[in-house]
C-alpha cells in the first residue's frame, strides 16, 4: 500500500475505533461517558476532513485538473457528516437515546461508504497522479488540530 493510501486508510480505521468505542456508553445510557468519547471522535473526524480539504483535494485537483469530479462529491459528503455532528449535539443536550442511536447509525453508514470510495479509488489515484506524494503527506501531517 503506498504512502497516502496507507496513512489515510489507517486514520479511517482509527476514527472507526474511536466511534465504536463511544457506542458502549450510548447503548448503556451513560451520557457523561458518551459525551466525552463522542467529542474525541468529532475532534479526530474534523481533523481528517481538514487534512483532505486543505491539502489533499487541492493537490489532486491541481495535478489532474479535475475540480468538478470526485473531490467535489467528497466535499459535499463532508458537509453531510458535519450536519450529523450538529444534530448529535442536540440529541446529547436532550439525552434522546433513540435519536442518538439513529444518528450514529446514519453517520457510520455515510462515513463507511464515503471511506470505501476514497480507499478504493481516490487515494490510489492520488498516489498515482500526485507529483510529490511525500511532500503532500508531510503537509497533511502538519495540519493542526
Amino acid at each position: 500500500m503506498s504512502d497516502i493510501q496507507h496513512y489515510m486508510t489507517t486514520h479511517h480505521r482509527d476514527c472507526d475505533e474511536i466511534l465504536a468505542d463511544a457506542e458502549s456508553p450510548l447503548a448503556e445510557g451513560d451520557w457523561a461517558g458518551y459525551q466525552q468519547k463522542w467529542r474525541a471522535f468529532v475532534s479526530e473526524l474534523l481533523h481528517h476532513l481538514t487534512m483532505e480539504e486543505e491539502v489533499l483535494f487541492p493537490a489532486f485537483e491541481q495535478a489532474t485538473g479535475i475540480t468538478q469530479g470526485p473531490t467535489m462529491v467528497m466535499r459535499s459528503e463532508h458537509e453531510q457528516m458535519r450536519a450529523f455532528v450538529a444534530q448529535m449535539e442536540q440529541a446529547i443536550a436532550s439525552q434522546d437515546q433513540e435519536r442518538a442511536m439513529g444518528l450514529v447509525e446514519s453517520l457510520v453508514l455515510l462515513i463507511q461508504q464515503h471511506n470505501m470510495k476514497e480507499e478504493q479509488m481516490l487515494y490510489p489515484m492520488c498516489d498515482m497522479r500526485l507529483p510529490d506524494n511525500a511532500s503532500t503527506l508531510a503537509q497533511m501531517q502538519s495540519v493542526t488540530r
Partner: protein
Amino acid sequence: MRLSGLQFDNIPALNIPFRFYLTAPIFAILTGVLLIFWGEQIWLSRWMPITLATTHLIALGVVAMIMFGSLFQLLPVLCGTPIPINSKGAIVFISLLSFGILCLSAAFLQQLSFLPALFLLSISLLSFGVILIYTLWFNASGFYTRTPVLLAVIMLALTIILGFSFLLNYQTGYFGALPKYWTNIHAAFGTLGWVTLLIITISFQVIPMFHVTPEFPVTIKNHYPFGLFILLISLAIELLFSNSHVTFALIATLLATYAIAALKQLSLRKRKLPDTTIKFWQLSLSSLLVCSFLLVVNLFTLSSKQLPFSLDSIIGVIFVVGVVLSVIQGMLLKIVPFLITLHLQQHAMKYPMGMGLMPDHYAIISRQHGKQLYWIHLGTLVIVVMSAFIPSLTKLVGILFIINWGFLWLMISRAYNAFSRIKLDISNA
C-alpha cells in the same frame, strides 16, 4: 486503474431501487397464497407444478428482483459506475419482468402456454443481462468487486439461457424429456452461482463497512469467488459425464469455510450498538453451514434412499428461506433507511434551513419493527423446515410468508412516504 470508470456521484434516483423493493414482497405474498391452497404438494417432488411455480416466484420475483434493485445502488459505490437505465427504463424492465414471472408461474400451473413467459422474460432478462455485462466489462473498476460481480452475472446469464432452453423444449417438445442433470445445472448455477456468488462478494464489502469488522482475509477475498465459479463449471461438466461427488463436497467445503469466516468477522465487530441486521446475517450464515453439511450427507444417501423424507427439498428450503431470504431482509433493514437518509441529505444541501428536519436511521424503520421482522422470519424458517416432516404445516408457512412480507412491504412503503413528506418539508423550511 480505470480512471474513465470513476464516477463518484452516480447513485440512481431513489425511486429506482424502491420500485424493485416494493414489487418483490408482492411475489412473496403471492407465493404465500399458493402455499396456503396447494402447498402440501410441494413436498411430493421438485417437479410438481406448484413446486416449480413457487420456486420461480421466489427465485425471480423476490430474490432476483431485490438483487437487481440493489445492483443499481451498489454498482456506483462498489464498481464506480452506474447501470445505464433511468427511471422510465426501470419501470419498463420491472413491468416486463413481473408479467413474465406471473406468466411463467401460470404456465407451470398449466394455466397458460410458456410462450408469453418466454417472450416477456427474454426481452427483460436478456436485455438487462447484456447491459450489466457490458457495464461491468467496459466501465467498472474496483479490484475486489468488478470481476466477482461479473462472474455472478455470467452465472445468471447461463441460468437464464438454460431456463429459456427448457421453456422452448416444454413448448415444442423438440428434445423430448430432458435428462435431470440439465435442470440440476440450471438450479446449481442459479442458487450457488448467481445468488451465492453475489452474496459472498457483497459481504466482503458490506460486513466490514456496515458493522466495522476487520477486513476478510485476503486469501478468501481473492480466491473464493473464483474458486466457486470454477467449481460450478467443473460440476456442470462432470454432471454431464459422470458422478460429481468430489466437486459437490468441495463446493460444500468452500461454502462452509466462507460461512465460518464470515461468522468470525461478525464476532470481531467493534461496534457496540444492538443491530438486528447482525442477527439476520448470523441466521443466514448458520443456515449456509447447515446446508453445506446436509449437501455432504446427501451425497451418501442419494442412492440408498435411506431417509423417509426428501433431503433435497430440506436443503432447498433452508437455502432459500434460511440463507437467502435472511440476508436479503437484513440488508433491506440497513439499505432502505440509508438510501433515504443519503437522498434527503443531498436535498437538504440545497435547502440548508431544512437540515434540522433530517430523520435519523431508526426514525425511518424503527429498531422495534426490525426486531419484529426478524422473529417473524425466524418463525417462518422453523415452520418451513418442520413442514417437510409434517406437510399439513405448509398452510401455516403460507400464512407466515404473507405476514412476513406484508409487514416488510408496509415498512418500505411507509419509509418511502416519509421520504416524500420530509423532502417536501425540507424544501419549504
